């Protein structure tokens, strides 16, 4: 339990991906089974512990201490789990208590019923020290929120076992906590587990961006072009009565898409883009699609308002036959025949975009016919479907980003290498009438600039600070004085969380406009016009 608690504490404050991977891999190496597998399940969200309601926790603690002192404490800390872990009085804080294994704690809680759950939790808290108490409370109240995705955890497993992450993704859905077989294999003590799950995920094939001079070396006749649709890449698998929808990284997202699952009355594995709308006539925007993402379940109203469908790119398996080694051109023919047999409201084909040469294609890329197209894809006619991101067979060639000239408003110190630099920038655009101009914040960016530019920005922030709040500085920004930043972004969505009413996708600083008068930065209306397109 100690090692797990320490791992959580470190992960939550470690900003860098490599740092997190190292912490996880070291933990897997140092921790015995089944604890490490249970920890993994807790991190990937696959550990099911009957929930203890926060109200129950509050009752437990105020039975043991003065409610006024508890109120002062909670008010100061702000997080219930953390407060309870700290104020809980137990002998374990001082004495060298016997270590409680994570497996024992989880086992006791999983066996507990609704009636004895609180007492069992209290008994555990009595025997644990502060960091472990925090970990166990987070486990039972759900949601570790430590900034580690399932994908990152799988990468850490791959690092630990020195295997490709694709191998882990492929196996993942046949495995169950505490993953003893998997760890035996990764630590070199056992055979690779057999793929056991029905309708398994097959690691996806990814493309590389077109770099300078890449295309000159290639013959357009070898390639097929398709639009790059701006939805989310998915894999629909239906085998022997089992139907699953996977994200690009192998997460099972079937629960949120019953409409798609219902229409999967076939034996095949399809690769495509998940979108919302009514094909072929109407394709919804990315912000429409967001109404359907990151949900465990979905209401009938949302289903009818934002129907989902898959725009198919590829076929990996049909009626039990693996098609991945066939050339793209042959897979495409099979795909076309196959999609023709499916419900047209749920599955359609990603059309082939005819083009004569690279220049003609560039015109199409720059000005695609639909707002939800973010560029073109190029696929070699003879390419097999291979996992990962091989260089050569597939390219993505994206539309140029949108840009806006915004004004720097706030800057925050970064983390790690950047902890002495103001490197996270909040910027705004003008709104209000001439003479009463006001800046409205529209986004935050922390990359896009060079190291030399970062030093200039940092100096500018330090020299033009008007207020400080902890790690944040407010920078002078008015029509007479300020710094204009050219911001590049991929798209814009309506947002009720932001005062401006808009939220940018992938904003980054593309240029520092030292030359531009501040009053001439863009207005909010410019962004709003983009929304209404």
């Amino acid at each position, binding site marked *: 339990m100690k090692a797990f608690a320490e791992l959580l504490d470190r992960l*939550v404050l470690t900003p860098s991906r490599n740092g997190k991977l190292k912490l996880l891999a070291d933990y897997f190496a140092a921790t015995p089974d089944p604890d490490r597998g249970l920890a993994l399940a807790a991190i990937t969200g696959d550990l099911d512990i009957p929930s203890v309601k926060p109200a129950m926790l509050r009752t437990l603690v105020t039975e043991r201490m003065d409610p006024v002192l508890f109120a002062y404490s909670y008010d100061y800390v702000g997080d219930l789990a953390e407060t309870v872990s700290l104020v809980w009085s137990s002998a374990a804080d001082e004495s060298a208590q016997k270590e409680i294994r994570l497996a024992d704690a989880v086992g006791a809680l999983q066996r507990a019923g609704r009636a004895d759950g609180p007492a069992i939790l209290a008994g555990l808290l009595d025997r644990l020290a502060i960091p472990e108490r925090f970990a166990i409370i987070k486990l039972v109240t759900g949601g570790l929120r430590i900034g580690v995705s399932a994908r990152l955890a799988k990468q850490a497993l791959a690092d630990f076992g020195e295997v490709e992450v694709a191998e882990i993704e492929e196996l993942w859905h046949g495995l169950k906590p505490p993953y003893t077989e998997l760890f035996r294999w990764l630590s070199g003590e056992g055979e690779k587990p057999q793929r056991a799950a029905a309708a398994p995920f097959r690691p996806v094939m990814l493309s590389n961006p077109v770099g300078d001079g890449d295309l000159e070396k290639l013959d357009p006749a070898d390639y097929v072009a398709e639009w790059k649709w701006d939805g989310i890449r998915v894999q629909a698998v239906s085998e022997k009565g089992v139907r699953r929808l996977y994200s690009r990284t192998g997460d099972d997202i079937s629960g949120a898409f019953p409409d798609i699952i219902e229409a999967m009355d076939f034996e095949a594995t399809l690769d495509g883009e998940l979108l919302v709308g009514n094909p072929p006539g109407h394709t919804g925007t990315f912000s429409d699609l967001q109404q359907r993402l990151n949900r465990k379940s979905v209401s009938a109203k949302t289903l009818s308002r934002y129907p989902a469908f898959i725009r198919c790119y590829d076929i990996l398996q049909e009626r039990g036959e693996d098609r991945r080694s066939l050339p793209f051109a042959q897979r495409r023919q099979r795909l076309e025949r196959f999609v023709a047999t499916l419900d047209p409201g749920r599955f359609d084909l990603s059309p082939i975009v005819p083009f004569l040469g690279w220049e003609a294609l560039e015109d199409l890329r720059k000005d695609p016919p639909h707002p939800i197209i973010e560029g073109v894809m190029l696929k070699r006619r003879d390419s097999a479907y291979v996992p990962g991101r091989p260089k050569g067979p597939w390219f993505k060639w994206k539309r140029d980003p949108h840009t806006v000239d915004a004004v720097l408003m706030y800057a925050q110190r970064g983390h790690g290498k950047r902890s002495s630099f103001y490197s996270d920038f909040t910027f705004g655009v003008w709104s209000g009438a001439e003479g009463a101009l006001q800046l409205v914040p529209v986004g935050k960016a922390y990359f896009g600039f060079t190291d030399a530019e970062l030093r200039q920005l940092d100096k500018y922030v330090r020299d033009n600070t008007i207020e400080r709040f902890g*790690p944040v500085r407010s920078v002078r920004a008015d029509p007479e004085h300020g710094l204009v930043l050219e911001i590049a972004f991929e798209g814009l969505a309506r947002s009720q969380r932001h005062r401006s009413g808009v939220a940018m996708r992938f904003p980054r600083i593309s240029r520092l406009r030292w030359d531009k008068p501040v009053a001439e930065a863009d207005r909010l209306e410019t962004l709003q016009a983009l929304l209404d397109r």
Partner: protein
Amino acid sequence: MIHVRNVFKRLFGAPWRPYLWTMQPHRLLCPRPEGLFCPPGGFFIDPVRPVDRALVTHGHSDHARAGHRAVLATAETLDIMALRYGEDFAATTEAAALGRTVRVNDVAVTFYPAGHVLGSAQILVEWNGLRIVASGDYKRQRDPTCALFEPVPCDVFITEATFALPVFRHPDASREIGRLLKSVRQFPERAHLAGAYALGKAQRVIRLLRDAGYSEPIFIHGALSKLCDYYASRGIDLGRLEPATVESGGKNGFAGGIVVGPPSAFADRWARRFADPVACFASGWMRIRQRARQRGVELPLIISDHADWDELTATIRDTGASEVWVTHGREEALVRWCELAGISAKPLHLVGYEDEGD
């Protein structure tokens, strides 16, 4: 008798305690804008403005200021004040030996160790049979760089309240040092930057590292060197210390090393010489995750020179005081605890002491 007690309670809002009432402790010590004043002794304790006669508990700058006419403090505290403010920080000084009573006008004054930093003391003042202890800042956890706190029986105990909330429970400092050393082993390509206040905390962190068997040179910020030298001259061996200059870091930017400096320096341009630094901060505030997050701390080290909640409440009981005055910090929670424990308590509103100094 019952009747009189109720009348008293209604008038003064405090329980009937004939003994203390006749003693009138506020005639012995009372808050003034300059600091805590002792009328029969004619002195202030830790005054924040220049006064004629000052008794100083320890060398932190919010307690020990320059410009008094006469200062009575432990020899170490006087040395530290001289290091910080120059030899002429007061017109006259007198060193107080721990445990030895001296008379200041009508009052008997004795200094006892407070366990806070080197030279730190509590001050017992006695007058007409009344005993008040002004404890300054203190802690109970063992600290290899200073003498252990000694509970002093008294009628009124004046306690600090920096960490006076039940959420502040400091772990054993050696455990925190263990976490730092583990991280150094895990991330040998990065420099570990341990933020620690220049007086006391920094030397304690360094000494604890040595106790844990760390024998590599430790790099220090320039602001620490005088005080580290002073600690060493007082027999506290800090091992090999090197200035954290750009030259000493070499090409690898201190990768694999431990650098100790004042916390403010790590947000400064000074910190750019370090390779992909791991920001660590040794402070009792690091107990609260949000505090660590706000400061961009990656490895919080919960090491405090102030008493935590359990130490505060245990100390109040140890002194046997029937009345407690609570100052600088979270007074309300400790006053509440005293009420529940049947001990009379009130906040003592002194100005000028920093809440954040740990």
